[in-house]
């Protein structure tokens, strides 16, 4: 009896958490355009999705920007973290506190100030400006995930590698990189997610022609949302779910190894 109650409670919580997404998934297979009436199972919206150039372009923009921003931010952030680690404590702490500001700052402030900066610099708002903006707000996350991996021990293992005859570059590749690798990966994934997720900053820096998934959905909400976007959201949800499962599995493997 007690066990049954427990299970019921669990199911209620899960329903509460996943009901909205479930609704979305179900409606994406609805034949009619209505959000309220179920008229039959259909893949109509999925078909429409893959023939809609505007949506496909937005998807492409979203993921190409996310990927490039994550790569660039991870690269710059990792190098920055290594440099910071070599600095004296006081300037390092100063820079780390400055690093926190973009994290705490409201997206809208970042978005507007970046837009103004780009315009003042004479940059034409486009895919490139969105990318720059995303690199900008991803950088602190990379720094924060790589820094804790670079401890005093990394400095001494680096020296040990030099002592054993490795050049600085070899020592970096064979000793430092493997030690901070998990931090780099999580910094990359965080950046990627933050970039895909972003709406506000993108909205202000994207210019006229460019849309990402989030800005596209926003612009369509005003004219009436079409179930095509349900289909798109369902697909994105599935991709995220898959990524989550894979990463969990990898983590479990690492723990047991």
């Amino acid at each position, binding site marked *: 009896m007690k066990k049954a109650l427990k299970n019921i409670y669990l199911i209620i919580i899960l329903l509460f958490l996943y009901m909205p997404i479930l609704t979305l998934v179900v409606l994406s297979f609805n034949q009619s355009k209505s959000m309220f009436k179920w008229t039959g199972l259909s893949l109509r919206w999925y078909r429409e999705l893959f023939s809609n150039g505007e949506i496909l372009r937005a998807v492409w923009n979203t993921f190409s920007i996310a990927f490039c921003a994550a790569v660039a931010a991870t690269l710059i952030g990792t190098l920055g973290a290594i440099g910071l680690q070599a600095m004296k404590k006081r300037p390092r702490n100063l820079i780390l506190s400055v690093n926190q500001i973009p994290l705490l700052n409201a997206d809208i402030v970042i978005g507007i100030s970046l837009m103004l900066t780009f315009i003042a610099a004479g940059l034409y708002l486009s895919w490139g400006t969105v990318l720059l903006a995303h690199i900008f707000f991803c950088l602190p996350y990379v720094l924060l995930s790589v820094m804790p991996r670079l401890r005093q021990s990394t400095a001494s293992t680096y*020296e040990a590698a030099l002592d*054993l005859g490795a050049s600085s570059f*070899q020592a970096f590749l064979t000793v430092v990189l*493997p030690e901070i690798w998990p931090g780099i990966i999580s910094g990359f994934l965080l950046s990627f997610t933050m970039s895909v997720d972003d709406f506000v900053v993108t909205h202000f820096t994207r210019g006229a022609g460019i849309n990402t998934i989030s800005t596209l959905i926003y612009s369509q909400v005003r004219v009436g949302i079409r179930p095509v976007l349900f289909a798109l959201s369902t697909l994105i949800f599935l991709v995220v779910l898959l990524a989550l499962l894979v990463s969990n599995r990898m983590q479990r493997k690492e723990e047991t190894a």
Partner: protein
Amino acid sequence: MKDALVELQHITKAFGENVVLDDLSLAIEENEFVTLLGPSGCGKSTTIRIVGGFEKPDQGRVLFEGKDITDVPPNRRNLNTVFQKYALFPHLTVGQNVAYGLVISGKTDQYIRDKVRYGLKLVNLAGFEDRRIESLSGGQQQRVAMARAIVNEPKLLLLDEPLGALDLKLREEMEYELRNLKEELGITFLYVTHDQEEALTMSDKVVVLNGGYIQQMGTPEEIYNEPENAFVASFIGDSNIVPGKMVRDRLVEIYGVPFPCVDEGFGENRPVDVVIRPEDLILREPGAGKLDGTVISNIFIGVHYEMQVAAGGFEWLVQNTVSHPVGEHVSLDVIPENIQIMKRPASEDEEALALDV
């Protein structure tokens, strides 16, 4: 004369305002076991890091087999280091750690395999090739660090307080093993420690450092039996350091009582410092010795009793296997060979030089 293996010439090094080494010169002969001994902050670790190439001296030169290597980076020096906290590579197995230097220098697989097996056997870790670093105990990690350094067949092995993180029992074991390893390999060892026992047990030559200066250099016996100044005397072992007056050669006056000794060349009626080791003080019946006094404390510490005797206005530390209860009247005596005379620092500066920590 044959060149020393390593020679430090007039090394000066400061970190900001803090002068760590001041005009330090030191020669290490081939196949010697040299220990740098001193309290923390005395410059011993900086010295070893300069030899290893991890720090550049502000002034002075480092010679290796007669060649100037002051500007040679660590990876081009024919020496290896066992680091204080081992600095093992956590993502590699024990075998891969030991093989690291050999892989970097491009040795053949067969050679590396044999050498790793040999190295691990030498440090009593045969068969540990595939173990992970974090699965090893502190003592085992220390041995891996040793093996990783010696498989490269360096001319010189630097050891930076390698036993510091181990417990007493393990440390004593490792002291003998290190000594044996050195005999077996014929490598020159430059060892850094703040532990006087380690230094005295293992070394051919002990260099006592303090405040960036060499206080004394010599065999363990010389350092222990004939400390040259108050710092060395008090840092190494327990000692009674009392003011005295050198009446003439072979006669010193302590608290008004003349003691025959074996030291010469201090001049006549010169103030000196006298060092007498607590185990060298003999307790006799009152009146039978030179200085009468009273036992004021007595602690049993295992091998012997440690007593304090108030005599002549000084509380003497006495170690003896025979217990004398507190309050007993005794007389202190010491044979001439066990009295060590040190020059009294003439000025406060000189004193600071000796005692500055």
